[in-house]
C-alpha cells in the first residue's frame, strides 16, 4: 500500500516537474556563475605598491604564491581605472607596514582579500622580529638568517596536524566548492519543503481522512510521504553533482562517491525540518510565506552564500550551531575540500542525524496533536 502512495506521488511529480526543474536549474546556474567553475577560478586583484621594495619583499612573494587570488602589480591610476570600470571588485595600495583596500563592489571577496593581505603583513612582521632578534644588521646577515629559517622550517622538530577546520589557520577557501555546495544545499530546501507541504494540503482536503479509514496504517502514510520527499531532494542534488562532475569537470578531489553518500544525513535532516515546519503552519499560504525566510536565513548563517569562517558575530555563529545547513556544508567541504575521512566527520554527521530524529519526532507529534 505504501508503494501505491509512492506511485501516485511519482505520477504527480512527472505531471508537474516545473518546480523541481527550476530549483535544480537555479542551483546549477548560480554555482556556475558565482563559483566560477567555468574558467574563472582565480580572482584578479590589482595592487599598487607605494614603496617599490614591497613587491620584492616577503609580502610580494606571499601574494604571488596565493592560489585563489591573482595579485597584479600596476600603477595607481591603472588600478583605480580597473576598479572604476568594474574589471576588479577590489584593489589594494601597499605600503611598507600597512595597506589600504580600494573597494569597488562590496562582496565576499573583499573580506577574503583583506584576510590574505593581513596574513602577509603579519608574517612579514614576524619575520622582521626574528631577524632583529637574531641580531642581523647587514644584508648578508639577513640572508643567512632567512636561509637558516627556511631550512629549519623545512625540517621542523615536530609537526602539528590540524584536525579542526574551524581554525582560521587551516581555512581553505575554494570558490567552486563553496558555491556548488552552498547553492545545492540551499535550493534543495525548497524542493524538499514543497514536497512535504502536500501532507498539510491532503489533510485539509480530506485525502488523509480517507486513507485513515482505509486499511493502510498511519505510519505507512508518513513513511511513504517522507521517503518520496527524501528521494526528490536527493535526486536534485545528485543531478547537480553529476553535471558538475562529468560535464563541468569538477573533480571532487577523487571523493565523488563519498560526497554523494555523505549528502544523505543532510537531506534527511531537511525532510525532518520540513515536516516540523509543516506541523507549525495552519495552511499552505502561511507555509509559502515562511519558507523563504527560513531558507534564506539558514543559508546566510549556515555558510551557503559565503564561508562561515568569515562570520565574526557571536550571535550568528551561535545560531549557526542549530542550523542543519552549517553541518551539511561542514560534511561536504570536509570530504571534498579538506579530504577528511568519514571518522573525522562523525560529529557533524551525528548532529545532522540527531536533528533529523528530533525534528521528525516533534513534527509528527504536533501534526497528530493538532489534527491538521
Amino acid at each position, binding site marked *: *500500500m505504501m508503494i*501505491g*502512495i509512492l*506511485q*501516485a506521488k511519482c*505520477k*504527480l511529480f512527472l*505531471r*508537474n516537474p516545473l518546480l523541481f526543474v527550476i530549483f535544480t536549474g537555479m542551483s546549477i546556474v548560480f554555482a556556475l556563475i558565482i563559483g566560477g567553475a567555468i574558467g574563472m577560478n582565480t580572482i584578479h586583484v590589482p595592487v599598487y605598491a607605494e614603496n617599490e621594495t614591497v613587491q620584492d619583499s616577503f609580502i610580494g612573494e606571499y601574494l604571488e604564491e596565493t592560489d585563489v587570488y591573482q595579485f597584479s602589480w600596476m600603477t595607481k591610476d591603472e588600478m583605480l581605472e580597473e576598479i572604476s570600470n568594474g574589471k576588479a571588485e577590489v584593489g589594494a595600495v601597499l605600503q611598507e607596514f600597512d595597506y589600504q583596500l580600494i573597494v569597488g563592489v562590496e562582496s565576499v571577496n573583499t573580506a577574503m582579500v583583506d584576510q590574505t593581505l593581513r596574513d602577509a603583513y603579519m608574517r612579514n612582521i614576524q619575520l622582521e622580529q626574528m631577524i632583529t632578534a637574531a641580531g642581523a644588521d647587514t644584508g648578508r646577515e639577513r640572508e643567512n638568517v632567512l636561509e637558516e629559517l627556511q631550512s629549519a622550517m623545512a625540517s621542523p622538530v615536530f609537526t602539528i596536524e590540524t584536525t579542526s577546520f574551524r581554525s582560521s589557520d587551516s581555512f581553505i577557501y575554494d570558490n567552486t566548492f563553496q558555491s556548488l555546495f552552498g547553492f545545492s544545499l540551499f535550493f534543495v530546501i525548497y524542493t524538499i519543503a514543497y514536497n512535504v507541504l502536500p501532507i498539510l494540503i491532503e489533510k*485539509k*482536503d*480530506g*485525502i488523509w*481522512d*480517507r*486513507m*485513515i*479509514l*482505509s*486499511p*493502510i496504517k498511519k505510519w505507512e502514510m508518513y513513511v511513504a510521504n517522507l521517503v518520496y520527499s527524501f528521494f526528490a531532494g536527493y535526486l536534485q542534488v545528485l543531478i547537480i553533482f553529476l553535471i558538475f562532475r562529468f560535464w563541468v569537470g569538477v573533480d571532487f578531489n577523487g571523493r565523488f562517491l563519498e560526497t554523494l553518500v555523505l549528502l544523505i544525513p543532510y537531506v534527511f535532516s531537511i525532510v525532518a525540518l520540513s515536516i516540523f515546519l509543516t506541523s507549525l503552519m495552519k495552511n499552505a499560504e502561511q507555509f509559502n510565506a515562511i519558507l523563504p525566510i527560513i531558507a534564506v536565513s539558514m543559508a546566510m548563517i549556515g555558510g551557503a552564500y559565503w564561508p562561515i569562517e568569515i562570520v565574526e558575530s557571536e550571535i550568528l555563529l551561535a545560531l549557526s550551531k542549530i542550523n542543519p545547513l552549517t553541518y551539511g556544508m561542514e560534511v561536504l567541504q570536509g570530504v571534498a575540500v579538506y579530504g577528511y575521512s568519514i571518522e573525522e566527520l562523525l560529529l557533524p554527521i551525528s548532529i545532522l542525524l540527531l536533528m533529523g530524529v528530533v525534528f521528525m519526532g516533534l513534527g509528527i507529534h504536533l501534526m497528530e496533536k493538532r*489534527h491538521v
Partner: protein
Amino acid sequence: MLELVDLSKKFKQNNAVKNVNMFIEKGEIVGLLGPNGAGKSTAISMLSSLVIPTKGDVRFNNKSVIKHPEPLRRVIGMVPQEIALYEDLTAEENLKFFGRIYKLKGNALKKKIDEVLDQIGLTDRRKDIVKTFSGGMKRRLNIGVAMLHDPEIMIMDEPTVGIDPQSRNYILETVKRLNHEKQMTVLYTSHYMEEVEFLCDRIYIMDQGNLIASGTKDEIKRILSAEKAILIKSNRWNDTFITSLKQDPTVNRVIVEEKEITIMVPKEINMFSSLIRIAEDAGIELNSVDIKTPTLEDVFLHLTGRALRD
C-alpha cells in the same frame, strides 16, 4: 446498528457538539440537517472515528468505536465536504490509487473501477485529469471513490455544495439507487432542506452544537401541525407594517427577510382581510400572498428563529 451516545466535542472554548444522541438503522437514509457551523461535520467526524469525542461514545453493533474503530472503518465509506482527490491525476488514476489502499488489485480492481465509473457517469472522462472537471463531476468522483470497497454505511458530508442542479439531481438519484439496490445505509448531511426531504427516511436537526429535533419527515412537520405559514412578498417593508403584524393578536410569529415575510398563525385563523388592511394602513403594496403547509424549512425556522442558510 450505529449509535451516538451523549456525544460532545469541545475545541478550546468552543463547544462544537453538545450531548448529541442519534441512531442509524441498517438500510435507512438518515438526514442530518443544520446551517453552517451547526456541528454536523464534527459530529460525523466523531461518528466515523476520525475525531475523538471529548465526552460520550459512538457504538457500532453495540461495540465502542472509540476503543475499536477497525470494525466500523472496514464497512464505512466517507464522502468529505472537500474534494478529497488528487487533482493532477485522472479519474481512473484516482480510483486506482484509492482502490489499492483498500487492497483491491488486478482484475478485481479494474472491474470495480469500471463499475464505479459507470455508476457516477464518468466512464467517458476516465482518462481526463480531475482538475479539468466541472464542480459537479468532481463531486461525483468524490462519491465514486467512497464506493470502491462496497461500504455498508456511506457517510456523506454536504456532497452537493456548489454544483449545478443537473449534477445535484444525478448525485441524489445515485444515493437513492445505492440505498435501494445495495441496501446501503446512508447518513446524509446537508443544509439544503429539499435534498433531505427527497432522500431521507428520518431526520435529525442540529443547531449550534445541539440536536434540536428528530423523527420521520411527517413527525417533524407535525411540530407545526397546529399552525400554517402565510408567505407575503413586497418590494419594501416598513417598521409600521412589521410592528402592526407583530401586535396582531392572531399572529404567533413573524419572520422578516429582505423581500419576504413569513407569518405563522393558528391553522383555523383566516387573516386575509386583516392582512390587507394592515398593509393599506402602513402604505405597503403587497406583490403576493401565499398560504403554505409547513415544510422542514418552516420547522427549522420555528425551532431556531433563523433560516437554514443564515
